[in-house]
């Protein structure tokens, strides 16, 4: 039997990798990829807690499905933003998009 904490560790590790990607990558598309990884780690948590704590109710899986839909919406808008920015500035480097910085 796999302990619940193993799943939590796996999900924490994936989340940390994704967080590092969001903070460290410069390519805006790579940042979106890392955000996907973080959402995925959250889903592992939800499904693992559902399986170990309340397997009789469907709450955990329902949350996971809703997170899936939100991730799809987020990607559509995020990539549209990237395309729109690329049209104006000819770049996807996040450091150079500092119009609102100061």
């Amino acid at each position, binding site marked *: 039997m796999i302990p619940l904490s193993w799943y939590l560790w796996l999900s924490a590790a994936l989340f940390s990798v994704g967080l590092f990607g969001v903070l460290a990558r410069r390519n805006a598309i790579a940042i979106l990829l890392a955000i996907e990884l973080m959402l995925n780690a959250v889903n592992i948590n939800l499904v693992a807690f559902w399986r170990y704590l309340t397997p009789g109710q469907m709450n955990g899986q329902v949350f996971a499905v809703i997170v899936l839909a939100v991730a799809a919406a987020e990607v559509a808008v995020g990539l*549209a933003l990237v395309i729109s920015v690329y049209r104006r500035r000819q770049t*996807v480097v996040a450091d150079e998009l500092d119009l609102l910085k100061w």
Partner: protein
Amino acid sequence: MSLELLLFLILALIAIASALGMLLSRHAVYAALFLVLNFATVAVFYLLLNAPFIAMAQITVYAGAIMVLFLFVIMLLGTEVLPPSPVLPWQRPLAFLLALGLLAESVYLLFFRQRLTLSLPATIDPFSGPKAIGQALFTGYLLPFEITSILLLVAMVGAILLTRKER
């Protein structure tokens, strides 16, 4: 060590290695393909957790739709490889210090405070199907479901509006 534990360890290794590969590859297409591998292994985790519907949705929505969208945009923009970024002078020591702190905390939690030894509840075949999820979605979670549909509509309108040709 049972077969299940061995499977978990191997899959966890593949998942973390592919996540790191996504992080470290300079080429954006390779990063996206590493993420596809990661999503596939996570789908197997869902199968291990008796959630086949989530596993299949993971494959079709994440590894299918979302990653195809990513690859399409990466190849459309043609910005696969970027030059390496300039590093701030104090950045590396500070990052090293903070990462060390996080690692120490995790090791403490993992080896000295581990009390989470739950026993796995009995198998739940009648509940794990898509039917039960659909029932839960359309009865108890009807309002969040409708809000999600509105969110998807707004995202669609937003994506079309943002990528429209400027006049």
